[in-house]
C-alpha cells in the first residue's frame, strides 16, 4: 500500500515537473523566435483588440475549423469543451477551499465527461473512415486518442459504476503540495486513471498537444494587419540593413 | 438545372455585433430573472396554486408552436414540391430549431427544480403526453437538423424528400402533441376538447409563417438583398390563408363548446363576463390577431405594400401571444367545476367562491424570462445565418422559380 502510494506520489511529482518545465521551455522558445514578416491570413484585424477577439474566437469556438470541416468541428469542439468542463470539475481535488464557481460547475463537469468521450469517439472514427485521415494518421495520433479515451472512460466508470473515495484522493493531492504523502486509495480504476493522466502530462510538451500553446503563437492568427502603417522588423533582419 | 445560391449574412460587423449585443443583454436579463425565481422560489411570480402556468408558458408554447409552423415553408418546398419555396427551406429549418430551443429553454427554466432536468430525461412515464413531448421535441430537433443537412449537403440530396415527408408528419404530431398537453386535461372545461389538436396545427401554421416572414424581411432588408414581388405575394397569400383557417377553428371551437351544455358556463365567462380575459380574447386574439391582419392582407392596396405586410405579421404574432394567454391562463383562471349545480360559498383554497375567477397578474421576472427565451431564439437565428449559408442570395423575380400554378392561384387565393 505504502509502496503504491509512494510510487504515485513520485510519479505525479515527476509528471508535473516534466509538464511545467517542458511547456515553459517550449513557450519561451516560441516567444523568442522572431516572425520576420507580416503574414496574418487576411482579412485580418487591423488593431490589437481585433486580434485578441480573433484569437478568442479561435480558442473558444474553433472558428477556422468550423469553416474547414463541420464534422471535425462538431466532434472536436464537443471534445474540447467537455475536456474544459472536466478540468474545471477536477479542480476540486486540487483547491481547498473549493471556489464557488468550481462548486457550481460540478454537475456540468459530468456532462462534460460524457461529451468528451463522445467527441473523442467521433474524432477517432474519422481516422478510420475517411481515407485522407487514414493516410495522415501516425500511430501516435491513434495512441493520443486512445489515451484520452482511456482517461475519460475510467473516469466515467468511477463516477457511475465503481465509486471511489473522492475525499481520500483529494487528501492525497493536497498532501503532495506539502510533501506530506497521504495514503492513496488503491482502487484499480483510479490507479489506471491516474497512470494515464501522468502519462498525458509527461508527453504533453513533446507531442502534438503543443497545439494548445502553439495557437497563441501562430503568426497567421496573432498578427495585426498593419504592415503599411508600422514597420515590422525582426532583430536578425535588422542586422542585414547595415 | 439552375442552382440556388446561398450566402452567409454579411452585414457590417458593427451592426451585427450590436444586434447580437442587444439580444445577449436580453438573454442576460432573462437569466437573471431565472436566477431570481430559482433562488427565491416561485412566490415572486404571479403564478399560484390556482394558476400554475403563467407567462413563461405563454411564451414557451407560442415559440414551440411557431417552431413547428416555421418548418412549414420547407415542407411546402420539398414535400409539396412548390419550387418557389425551395430557396426558403433552409431558413425555415433554422427557425424551427431556434424557436424550439428558445421555447424549451423557457419551459425548463420555469421548472420548480430545473436542476433535475436530467431526471426528466432519464425517467419517463409513457402514459404522460408530456413525456412523449420530450421525445417529440428532441426528435423534431434531430429530424430538422437532418433535414437541413439534406438541404445543404449534396450527399444528402437523395434523402431530402423522404426526410421532408417524415419531418412533416413529425411536425404535425408535435403540434398535435403540444395541443394535447391541454387537450388531455379532462378536468378543465376549456381544454377537454379533441379539436384542440387540429386547432394548434392551424395556429402553428399562422404564427410560424408570420415569424418566418419577419425574420426573412429583416435579414434581407439589412443586407440589401432583394425579395421580388412574386415571393412577397406568395408568402402574403399563404399567411392570409392560414390566418383565415385559424379564425375558422376558433369559431368551431367555441361553437362546439357552446353546444355542450357542460361548457356553457365557461363559454359564457370567456366570451362575455371574463373581464380582462374577455378583452384579451376579443381585442387581442380575434381583432388584432385575426381580423385586422386579414383586412390588411386582403386589402387591394395595402396588401401590396411590404410595410403593411410586415405590420400584418407583427399583429398576427401579437394576436398569437394573446391567444396563448387566453388558452393557457384564462382557462386556469376559470374555476374548476367540482360541484355542478352548487355555488361555492366559502373555501379554504380559492375554489372559485361565488364563481370568481382566480386572480393572476404577470410578474416582471416571468415576462423577462419569456423575453429572454425569445431573444435566445433570435440569437440562434442571427448567428446561424451569419456563419452558415441559410439565406438565398436573392429572391428577386428573375431568380426564383416560376410560379407553377399561376393561373389557378389567381383565381383561388387572390383576393377579389
Amino acid at each position: 500500500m505504502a509502496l503504491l502510494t509512494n510510487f504515485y506520489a513520485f510519479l505525479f511529482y515527476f509528471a508535473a515537473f516534466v509538464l511545467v518545465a517542458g511547456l515553459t521551455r517550449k513557450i519561451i522558445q516560441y516567444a523568442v523566435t522572431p516572425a520576420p514578416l507580416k503574414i496574418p491570413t487576411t482579412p485580418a484585424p487591423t488593431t490589437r483588440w481585433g486580434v485578441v477577439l480573433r484569437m478568442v474566437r479561435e480558442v473558444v469556438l474553433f472558428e477556422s475549423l468550423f469553416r474547414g470541416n463541420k464534422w471535425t468541428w462538431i466532434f472536436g469542439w464537443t471534445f474540447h469543451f467537455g475536456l474544459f468542463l472536466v478540468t474545471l470539475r477536477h479542480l476540486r481535488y486540487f483547491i481547498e477551499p473549493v471556489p464557488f464557481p468550481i462548486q457550481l460547475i460540478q454537475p456540468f463537469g459530468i456532462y462534460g465527461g460524457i461529451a468528451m468521450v463522445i467527441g473523442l469517439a467521433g474524432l477517432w472514427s474519422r481516422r478510420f473512415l475517411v481515407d485522407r485521415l487514414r493516410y495522415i494518421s501516425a500511430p501516435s495520433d491513434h495512441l493520443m486518442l486512445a489515451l484520452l479515451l482511456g482517461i475519460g472512460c475510467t473516469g466515467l466508470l468511477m463516477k457511475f459504476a465503481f465509486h471511489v473515495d473522492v475525499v481520500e484522493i483529494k487528501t492525497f493531492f493536497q498532501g503532495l503540495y506539502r510533501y506530506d504523502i497521504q495514503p492513496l486509495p488503491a482502487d484499480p480504476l483510479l490507479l489506471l486513471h491516474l497512470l494515464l493522466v501522468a502519462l498525458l502530462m509527461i508527453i504533453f510538451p513533446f507531442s502534438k498537444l503543443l497545439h494548445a500553446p502553439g495557437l497563441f503563437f501562430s503568426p497567421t492568427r496573432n498578427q495585426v494587419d498593419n504592415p503599411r502603417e508600422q514597420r515590422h522588423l525582426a532583430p536578425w533582419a535588422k542586422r542585414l540593413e547595415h | 438545372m439552375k442552382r440556388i445560391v446561398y450566402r452567409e449574412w454579411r452585414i457590417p460587423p458593427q451592426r451585427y455585433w450590436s444586434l447580437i449585443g442587444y439580444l445577449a443583454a436580453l438573454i442576460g436579463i432573462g437569466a437573471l430573472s431565472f436566477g431570481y425565481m430559482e433562488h427565491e422560489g416561485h412566490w415572486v411570480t404571479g403564478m399560484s396554486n390556482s394558476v400554475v402556468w403563467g407567462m413563461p408558458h405563454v411564451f414557451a408554447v407560442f415559440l414551440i408552436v411557431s417552431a413547428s409552423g416555421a418548418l412549414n415553408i420547407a415542407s411546402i418546398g420539398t414535400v409539396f414540391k412548390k419550387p418557389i419555396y425551395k430557396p426558403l427551406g433552409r431558413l425555415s429549418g433554422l427557425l424551427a430549431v431556434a424557436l424550439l430551443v428558445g421555447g424549451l429553454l423557457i419551459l425548463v427554466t420555469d421548472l420548480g427544480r430545473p436542476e433535475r432536468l436530467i431526471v426528466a430525461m432519464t425517467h419517463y412515464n409513457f402514459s404522460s403526453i408530456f413525456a412523449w413531448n420530450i421525445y417529440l421535441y428532441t426528435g423534431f430537433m434531430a429530424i430538422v437538423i437532418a433535414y437541413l443537412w439534406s438541404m445543404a449537403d449534396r450527399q444528402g440530396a437523395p434523402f431530402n424528400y423522404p426526410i421532408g415527408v417524415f419531418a412533416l408528419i413529425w411536425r404535425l404530431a408535435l403540434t398535435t402533441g403540444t395541443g394535447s398537453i391541454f387537450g388531455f386535461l379532462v378536468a378543465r372545461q376549456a381544454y377537454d376538447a379533441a379539436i384542440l389538436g387540429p386547432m394548434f396545427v392551424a395556429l402553428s401554421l399562422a404564427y410560424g409563417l408570420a415569424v418566418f416572414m419577419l425574420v426573412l424581411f429583416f435579414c434581407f432588408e439589412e443586407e440589401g438583398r432583394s425579395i421580388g414581388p412574386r415571393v412577397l405575394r406568395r408568402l402574403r397569400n399563404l399567411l392570409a390563408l392560414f390566418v383565415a383557417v385559424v379564425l375558422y377553428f376558433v369559431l368551431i371551437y367555441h361553437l362546439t363548446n357552446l353546444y355542450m351544455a357542460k361548457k356553457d358556463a365557461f363559454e359564457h365567462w370567456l366570451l362575455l363576463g371574463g373581464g380582462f380575459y374577455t378583452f384579451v380574447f376579443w381585442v387581442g386574439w380575434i381583432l388584432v390577431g385575426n381580423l385586422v391582419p386579414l383586412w390588411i392582407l386582403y386589402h387591394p392596396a395595402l396588401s401590396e405594400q411590404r410595410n403593411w405586410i410586415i405590420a400584418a405579421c407583427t399583429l398576427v404574432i401579437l394576436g398569437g401571444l394573446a391567444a396563448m394567454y387566453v388558452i393557457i391562463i384564462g382557462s386556469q383562471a376559470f374555476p374548476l367545476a367540482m360541484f355542478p349545480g352548487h355555488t361555492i360559498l366559502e373555501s379554504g383554497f380559492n375554489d372559485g367562491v361565488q364563481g370568481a375567477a382566480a386572480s393572476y397578474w404577470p410578474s416582471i421576472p416571468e415576462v423577462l424570462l419569456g423575453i429572454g427565451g425569445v431573444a435566445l431564439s433570435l440569437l440562434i437565428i442571427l448567428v446561424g445565418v451569419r456563419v452558415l449559408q441559410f439565406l438565398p442570395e436573392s429572391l428577386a423575380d428573375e431568380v426564383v422559380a416560376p410560379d407553377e400554378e399561376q393561373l389557378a392561384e389567381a383565381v383561388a387565393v387572390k383576393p377579389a
Partner: protein
Amino acid sequence: MHRLHAPHNQPSGDESPAEAVATTRRALIGTAAGLGAAALVAPGVVLHTLSAQAETAPITNKSRWGLLIETDKCAEGCRACIEACDHEHGLDRQVPEGSPSKWEQQKAVWIRKVKLQDNQTGRITQLPLMCQHCEHPPCVDVCPTGASFKRADGIVMVDRHLCIGCRYCMMACPYKARSFIHHNTTGQLTAVPRGKGCVESCNLCVHRRDYGQDSTACADACAATGHHAILFGDLKDPESPIRRRMREIQNRQIREDLGLNTGVRYAGI
C-alpha cells in the same frame, strides 16, 4: 369500531427504553440489521419513540386506503381536521412570504374546507376536501417523470426525488388537490420532508400507514372534536368499519362523471 384519538407519542410496546437502545446498537453493528425496533436515544436529550412497528416489507395491494366523509356531520366553523393535517405534516411551519393575498394563493394546502350551496334547494353543505386518491388518477397519467404515482395500497403521492416541479399534475387534477411549494421551507419534520419547487398533496398520512397506525391525522382530529365526520379505512376489506358504514349510508364521489373511482367518498352531497 372507530377508535378514539390515541396519543401517538405513547410508547407502544413493552420494550423499556434501555432495551430499545441495546437493540438498536446491535442492529447497527450489523447483526440484527435494523429489523423491528427503531427507537433511538440521542444522548441525554429527547426520548424518541415510535408508536408502532415500522414496515419492512413492500406494501401490497391487499388493501386500498380511503376515507368516507359524512358531510352532514361536518360542523360549521370547525377546522380541527385542517389544523391536525397542518400540524402532522409541518404545514403550520410555513412562513408567509409576499402580500397576504398572494400568500393565500401560494401557500401549500393539503386539506381545506368547502362550503356549498345547492343552487336549487339552497341547502348548505360543508365538507373537507383533499386529494381523492383516485384509482385512475389523471395527475399520475400526465406526470412526465413518474414522480406522481399510486402506491400499491391506493395512496396517490409525489415522489419528490423525481418531481421536477412542472405542475402538469396540478393542471390535470380535477379537485385542485395539489399545491406547489413556492417558498423556501424551514423546520420540516423528519417524517415529512418537503421543500421548494416540488408538488405535494394529501398522502393519507403515509408515514402513519407504514408505521402501522390505524388512522389519519384528520380523521383522528375530527373524532376528537366529537364530530366523527371523517372515517378512514380499507376499502378492500368488506368487513372494515369504512365499508360497513358505506353500506349503511348513501355516498358518492365528487365528479363521478369523470370515472376516476376515487378513494375518498362523500355522503350527503
